[in-house]
């Protein structure tokens, strides 16, 4: 075994002569030697920053102050030092003490007078065991770092993506779903009325202030209702239900979300209006099949939905007057029992060859009995009425 790779060896002996011989012998064999003249000095050194790098301790037993037995006992009782192999230095006529030390946890013994080849052999064995231990520690530390990184990525991912999409990315079936699939979804598209005009006149601080308030409020509702937010684009947002996590009543959930968003918008509208911002809110909801999965290009992918259902929701939203939630025919059919609706006739929408029948949601049926929501002026009622 060559001394390559070296190692740091602490020599603990109270006689100068023995220390000199050992230090020289260790250096001859490519090791780095540290010295301590008694047990107390040895423990102090091991407790210092330097001590952490000691690979093996060569320990004499007969020493004033603190003898070798006590050093060994304290090292084995210390979690930070227990793993450092201790080789006891012993004259051949003192083998009784060696036995005692091995019982106390010493790794080996080195007979006096010293012999280069025995020193080499004993050290390689102890160093090998120390290195194995270090590797185990290193491996455990790496494992911990890796897990921490994965957890942090998951958390960060969840901040950038919809929670459902973040979960999907780190799930076993994620790859297949990301590669693209068809599914029936309910798409909810909403945006602000008057936002373009507002953005042309507002200061950037005002503009971003409004967007932050709006997105924070709506984002909270989307999370609470289990929607998958595909994207925020300025004032517009597309949310879909039933993907990537399937939900049984996706149409109903979508409409509940739309109604909740409208209510929340009313709460935001008051303070905005006092600041002179004239903004309105409209929603389009449609049900249909879409192709979902990873959309984009290497370096920037989004989880997205493509299909007429998305376009229809967006067109209905564009048609909606302030406070209106327009449902496609299929969406309305699915939630008819749940909502108080009114037909708004057949709309001619860009990209649709035939007129599209649509319904506005006045209120959820449970709420309709109460006086409140009806007064918050959904539909064509003048927004000013609610405020006055």
């Amino acid at each position, binding site marked *: 075994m060559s001394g390559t790779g070296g190692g740091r060896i602490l020599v603990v002996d109270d006689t*100068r*002569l023995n220390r000199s011989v050992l230090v*020289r012998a260790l250096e001859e064999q490519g090791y780095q030697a540290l010295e301590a003249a008694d047990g107390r000095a040895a423990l102090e050194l091991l407790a210092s920053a330097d001590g952490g790098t000691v690979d093996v301790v060569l320990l004499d037993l*007969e020493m004033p102050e603190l003898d070798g037995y006590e050093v060994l006992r304290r090292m084995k009782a210390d979690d930070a030092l227990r793993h450092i192999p201790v080789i006891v230095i012993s004259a051949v006529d003192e083998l009784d003490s060696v036995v005692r030390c091995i019982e106390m946890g010493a790794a080996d013994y080195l007979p006096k007078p010293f012999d280069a080849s025995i020193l080499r052999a004993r050290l390689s064995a102890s160093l090998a065991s120390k290195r194995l231990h270090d590797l185990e520690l290193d491996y455990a530390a790496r494992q911990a770092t890796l897990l921490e990184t994965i957890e942090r990525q998951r958390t960060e991912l969840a901040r950038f993506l919809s929670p459902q999409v973040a979960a999907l990315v780190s799930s076993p079936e994620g790859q297949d779903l990301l590669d693209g699939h068809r599914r029936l979804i309910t798409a909810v598209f909403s945006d602000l009325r008057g936002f373009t005009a507002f953005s042309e006149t507002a200061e950037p601080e005002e503009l971003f202030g409004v967007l932050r308030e709006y997105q924070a409020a709506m984002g909270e509702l989307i999370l609470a209702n289990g929607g998958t937010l595909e994207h925020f684009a300025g004032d517009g947002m597309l949310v879909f239900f039933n993907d990537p996590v399937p939900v049984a009543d996706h149409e109903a959930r979508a409409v509940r979300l739309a109604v909740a968003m409208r209510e929340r918008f009313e709460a935001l509208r008051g303070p905005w209006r006092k600041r002179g911002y004239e903004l309105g809110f409209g929603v389009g909801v449609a049900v249909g099949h879409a192709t979902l999965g990873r959309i984009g290009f290497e370096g920037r992918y989004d989880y997205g939905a493509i299909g007429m259902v998305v376009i229809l929701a967006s067109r209905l939203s564009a048609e909606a007057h302030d406070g209106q939630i327009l449902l496609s025919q299929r969406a309305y059919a699915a939630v008819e029992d749940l909502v108080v609706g009114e037909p708004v006739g057949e709309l001619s929408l860009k990209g649709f060859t035939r007129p599209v029948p649509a319904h506005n949601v006045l209120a959820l049926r449970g709420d309709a009995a109460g006086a409140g929501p009806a007064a918050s002026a959904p539909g064509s009622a003048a927004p000013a009425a609610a405020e006055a």
Partner: protein
Amino acid sequence: MPDQPLDEATLAQLLETVGGDHAFLAELIETYLADSPALLDDMRGALASGDRVALRRAAHTLKSTSASLGALALAATCRELEAAAADAPPAELAARAEQVTSDYGAARAALEARGAQEGAT
């Protein structure tokens, strides 16, 4: 061989252990010559005061360093003193210490000569 104050085989092994460096061996001998008188003083002092623990330790250390340099006859008498220190009668300890002092004289003379020789190599 017991008559020889220095064991050549031990010295050869020591020289090999320190990488064949004769000058370093000379330094080791000097270290011994410088440090050992204090051990003899400790031994005599412990004997006078009846401190058996100190006597044993002084004998042990002198044994150990002497053996390292091949002063095996001296190491042997030190070992006997060390073993007897705990419970032998004071008269026996005094006699053994006398023997140690005498063997030490011989070993020291031999090491002085050897040190000069190694240093000149």
